[in-house]
């Protein structure tokens, strides 16, 4: 059976420099659907990135900053970007040279589809 997230993942993975796109449960960090390259550990990235996103969302709420719309983690050899939608989080693993603006636009566009499929967040 086709996943309802195929189109969302396709639109993100098409951006040049994006190496993996994962839809995961924000609460559990379990992969719902993903497009990965051979050798990538989607389970590992999903568990850690979803936990990070959840903590960032809770931190922003605690600081009275409102909802997190887009999260970006910069590392020497790449970037991890994420947006949340309902109880799901869309995680992107990209090269350092990726056009972050384009990734952000695609992720924010995808957030609506995640919310529709993932229900309301806690």
């Amino acid at each position, binding site marked *: 059976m086709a996943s309802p997230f195929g189109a969302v993942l396709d639109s993100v993975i098409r951006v040049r420099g994006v190496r993996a796109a994962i839809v995961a449960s924000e609460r*559990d960090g379990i992969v719902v659907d993903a497009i990965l390259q051979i050798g990538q550990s989607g389970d590992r990235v*999903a568990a850690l990135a979803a936990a990070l996103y959840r903590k960032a969302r809770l931190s922003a709420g605690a600081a009275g900053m409102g909802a997190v719309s887009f999260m970006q983690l910069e590392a020497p050899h790449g970037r991890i970007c994420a947006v949340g939608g309902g109880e799901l989080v869309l995680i992107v693993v990209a090269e350092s040279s990726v056009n972050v603006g384009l990734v952000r636009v695609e992720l924010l566009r995808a957030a609506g589809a995640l919310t529709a499929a993932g229900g309301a967040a806690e």
Partner: protein
Amino acid sequence: MTMTVVESWIEKPLERFVRDAGVELALLLHPSGQVLAQHGFARAVDVMSACALAAGIHATAGELGRMLNGRPFRGLHHAGRTRQVFLAEAAWPRGTYIFLTVFGPDSSLGLVRLYFDELAAGLVAAAPAELPSAAPALEGNFERDLNRNLAVLFGRA
């Protein structure tokens, strides 16, 4: 919360698991129900109860898996409203053991599964080569061994 272990080589891998996965309780036990290590429990009686229940759940899930699937289920996850339980089998050269952990909103099933795999690998790496194989508990020795392990964990040995 304190961690106590019956055999010292278990401590480091388990300590790392507890820290990285952010769990509240952790219990490593023999399939017979005898405890090997615990984290987060305050009373021996709670450890004893948790071990008995975990061993029972493991045996039941194993049989259910054999009936339905031809092979035993090796992992179990139960999500409560605020706390979740993860129970899985860890195998290393000495035999098979059961691992039970309880975690809250500070952790997640994904993190627990991820670090459980690392714990299992860490235990294999840390286990001394000269350990005897885990013999099934004999009825006559069971209570004596159980009490000895609980005494070691809770400082009454």
